[in-house]
């Protein structure tokens, strides 16, 4: 195995997430150049991990604008839910009224038919 081949694999192998083939491991164990290369990658990785705690100060207004946007979204959601609730109640009321009207009409029709039948029988 050549150093150039190993060098291609080091960026992936540096964090230990990816298993390294045995020939690569053996080469690194005995090659000072590749060990130095690996050490440089590890140093870079440690540095990157340190950046995690290096906070940047937010630009002015970031917090207030974000909170305002959340407030606005919440109000919209509340209005939408209120409207959909009312819409549901309205649709329910209309449906109920239509059903009642239908039932009344059907009852009236049945009653009229029964009367007509009774009148016809009486005439005979």
């Amino acid at each position: 195995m050549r150093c150039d081949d190993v060098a291609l694999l080091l960026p992936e192998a540096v964090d230990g997430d990816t298993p390294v083939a045995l020939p690569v491991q053996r080469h690194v164990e005995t090659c000072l150049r590749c060990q130095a290369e690996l050490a440089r990658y590890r140093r870079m990785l440690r540095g990157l991990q340190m950046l995690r705690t290096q906070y940047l100060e937010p630009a002015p207004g970031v917090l207030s604008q974000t909170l305002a946007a959340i407030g606005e979204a919440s109000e919209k959601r509340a209005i939408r839910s209120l409207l959909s609730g009312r819409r549901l109640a309205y649709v329910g009321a209309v449906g109920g009224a239509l059903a009642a009207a239908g039932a009344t009409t059907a009852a009236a029709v049945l009653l009229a038919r029964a009367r007509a039948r009774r009148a016809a029988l009486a005439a005979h």
Partner: protein
Amino acid sequence: MGTNDQISRQSGSDGLDELVGEAQRGDRTAFEELVRRTYVDTYTLAMRLTGNEEDARDVVQEAYLRAWKGIRRFRGDSAFTTWMYRITANASYTLVERRRRRRTTQLDDVDDPIDRRLDAQPDRLAESSAGLEHLSAALDQLPPSLRTLVILKDVYGLSHEAIAEELGISVAAAKVRLHRGRKRLRNLLDASEAQDGTRRSARAV
């Protein structure tokens, strides 16, 4: 301008779980407190991903709006901050993609990125070592698609799977980009150190 210590304290995770629980029950005040405690962290990630303040501001706002809408879906498998990293990465990706598509038709509309190198902002990261300065500057020089991978994986510790999901790419593609990103970053660091060495030698003469 606050120091890193002050900012770091603001980002403390004490009591976040309790606030998350309350926010999931619809308590907006609790969610707003979550925002107050974590926005510095979210903003820092947004800045690192987008490279400029205006975009970072939009990303932070969008990320918290998405979080507020989806807080009931947060199962607590990971820390709230990690969940926010994922949402921020996704919001940043959406914004960058939108900008990229627009840029093809409106070339004049693209702002110059703000210079985020440490020597351009001496009061930020003032306690960083020279090594971290070089690293941060080199990171900024990476192409956005590679930088995003290196930041999310190596700085914020997200898994390949989580990154792939948020960026809408395959796990294999995420691994390839990370590999390229690390390699390119190493080359940039080498070049920067060589440049420094030359400067030091010139001064010594």
